[in-house]
């Protein structure tokens, strides 16, 4: 199907969102809670764009969740969109006061953050990418708990969760470094739980937890013969490919 983005005709496919089409067409839309590996969440609302319906009425929609339809007309930049993003930047930077990432957003949009009381040490912007990562990569122990202004990311009952495998996929996807991970003396402490670390058989770098290895083995149904870190595994694969291509 064809849709119009900023008076430009582009191709789109059923099931795509406006944001997905824009990314493919190199049309910039800012996002905080979007990651191409996951479904759009519609949580941060930075990706709001305007659409024009058949009667000529304009309205704001979240481009990361709005499904395209034939003939859809989209505007990705307007005064209203700018004002929305500016206000959101002011609020996000006001909340996540300890996050340089969040402060940069405010600078970028040239707004003075509305600093909230009691948030001096806050880094999290509640983009919820960690929850998605935990669901997809780990064992779905993270959730956005509580309600309203008290919403936060936690494990059940704010305790070390039995199912947590310590893979730290959550910490790696976090844009603000809000998830605390401590690694020392061969151990990793994350989400109220301490894990042993396994060393890479090749380079000796501590890279994974036994729970994580078991989780992967159970999921893939294959026993790992040699524990290799990501870098060494890549190198090994490259060697194999080289051998074959000779």
């Amino acid at each position, binding site marked *: 199907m064809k849709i119009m983005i900023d008076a430009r005709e582009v191709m789109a496919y059923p099931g795509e969102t406006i944001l997905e089409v824009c990314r493919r067409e190199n049309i910039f839309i800012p996002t905080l809670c979007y990651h191409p590996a996951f479904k759009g969440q519609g949580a941060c*609302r930075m990706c709001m764009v305007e659409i024009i319906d058949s009667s000529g009425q304009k309205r704001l*929609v979240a481009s990361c969740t709005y499904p395209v339809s034939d003939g859809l007309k989209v505007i990705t930049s307007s005064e209203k969109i700018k004002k*929305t993003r500016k206000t959101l930047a002011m*609020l*996000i930077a006001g909340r996540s006061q300890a996050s340089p990432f969040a402060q940069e957003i405010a600078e970028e949009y040239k707004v003075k953050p509305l600093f909230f*009381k009691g948030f001096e040490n806050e880094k999290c912007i509640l983009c919820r990418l960690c929850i998605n990562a935990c669901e997809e990569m780990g064992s779905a122990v993270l959730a956005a*708990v509580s*309600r309203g*202004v008290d919403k936060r990311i936690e494990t059940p009952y704010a305790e070390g969760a039995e199912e947590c495998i310590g893979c730290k996929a959550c910490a790696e996807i976090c844009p603000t470094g809000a998830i605390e991970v401590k690694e020392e003396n061969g151990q990793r402490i994350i989400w109220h739980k301490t894990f042993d670390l396994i060393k890479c058989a090749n380079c000796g770098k501590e890279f994974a937890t036994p729970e994580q290895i078991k989780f992967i083995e159970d999921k893939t149904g294959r026993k790992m013969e040699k524990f290799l870190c990501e870098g060494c595994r890549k190198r090994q694969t490259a060697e194999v490919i080289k051998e074959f291509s000779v």
Partner: protein
Amino acid sequence: MKEKMKIESSVNKVMVCCGTGCTANGARQVLAAFMDKLRDNPNFEVVPVLKATGCNGWCEKGPIVKIMPQDISYCHVKAEDVDEIIDRTLLKGEPVKRLLYRDPVKKEFVTSIHQTDFYRKQHKIALRNIGEIDPGSIDDYIERGGYKALKKVLKEMTPDEVIEEILKSGLRGRGGGGFPTGLKWQACKNTPRFPKYIICNGDEGDPGAFMDRSVMEGDPHTIIEGMLICAYVLKAERGFIYVRDEYDLAVKYLRQAILDAREHGFLGENILKSDLRFDIELVRGGGAFVCGEETALIKSIEGYPGEPHDKYVFPTEKGLWGQPTVINNVETWANIPVIILDGAEKFASLGTVGSPGTKVFSLVGKVVNTGLVEVPMGITLREIIYDIGGGVPEGRQFKAVQTGGPSGGCIPASHLDLKVDFDTLTREGSMMGSGGIIVMDDTTCMVEVARYYTNFLAGESCGKCTPCREGIRALVEILTRICKGEGELSDLQLLRDISEVMQEASLCALGRTAPNPVLSTLRFFEDEYIAHIVEKRCPAGVCPALTTFYIDPELCTGCTLCKRNCPVDAIKGEAKKKHEIIEDKCIRCGECYRRCRFKAVKVR
């Protein structure tokens, strides 16, 4: 058979209102006293029938006891009054005067509750059976024409004809959205995927609202019948009634109603010997206000946290477990059987063109007759508050009325002639919501009202999207500092800017309507905001940091009422002599201000 009917209609019926309000005031004890004293009473040839009914709506006057067929209603009945009622009314047929309602203007006793001002302007459709039947008895419901509409659609109507009828009636969703019910059903029917699901939204969460509660507690079968009619249209086989967890009595009666309906063949396989098969499960909510939002409610039934998601694809296409789903509010369901039986024209003849039919409102706050009222749409706020509600009590001045729950707006006296319907209220910056009406008098600070409701929403937003979560946080912080006298004039623009973005960018209706209390008070009561910010004064005498009370010596009679009620002994003065407030001791609670009968206590 005819003989038996005759006896039955002449037999006295004693109907004790056991709605939540009356129960709280001792209706169960009254019921027990009747039960005790009527059982094996040798004075009766035929012992009167005793019924515990749902809410009559006039909670202010409860417990209410109605005697039929004479149609005598008693107010504020206590267990001690039961002997006299039995002796004089049931045996001798005369009313007990002191228990009758006395018209405050005409000073006359009114025998039938239906002749009071409170009831005269009402028109009951959704509440038609409530107060007339025992909600625990399916026979009572059937006796009043229950399940006839279901029989009618099964025997005489095609699914498309049913949709046509609902469309013609113009019925719009009573939960607040106001979406045309017929269109919703049609969209779901046109989605060619099965299974389809039907949900009743009974997660009523607005503070001070009890419309849906009253229907669920007082007439549970009407909901089941409405859902069955929809099930026939959609060929759905499973339905869910999602009830707010705190509604114990509603859960009890709904559970009973579902069991009875199954037993009578209204739920299950081959309903009324047709191909229809349908069953209903009861789901208790988890206590979150936001679960009244339909996508959050659906998530909650699925077992996830109650967080809404963007509704660019409607539940009629992708709802519960991704399947086509019709979700309607309790009151909407209660209207369906009546539309089918009495016809769409009759329903559409009530109310306004854009909003036909009636609407149930819970009328609370600073109003004489608090309670539950069902009125034709298009009635003015003035009629509801003054004619039905009896106005503001204790000679206080009306100040504002808030409609539509915590995210509704405050409407001032100058707009009291507004017609109450979906579109008018929205245009004026408030909303119909599910039908809460809260009346406020001149002792209410509008800035504090805005702060209060926004603060309620701060705890009840789901917290998923930025504009709602952080926007509400910002509004509360700004409003709190204004109430403390630390606000600046630039705060007003900031409130407006943040509100505007919340309205446009929030994910669900909760966030989009959350700024209503702020925006409507800013629009109609901006002078109060300015008094707080510039003059550092709270004109209503509510915000402690900005209030100073004093006693006008001209008006003080030395009655000592204020002195006796002051919790901190901050008032000095002897009886029949002028009193004085000791400012250092005063905690600005306003007790003296509200108590004084001579308006001698003033706000500086």
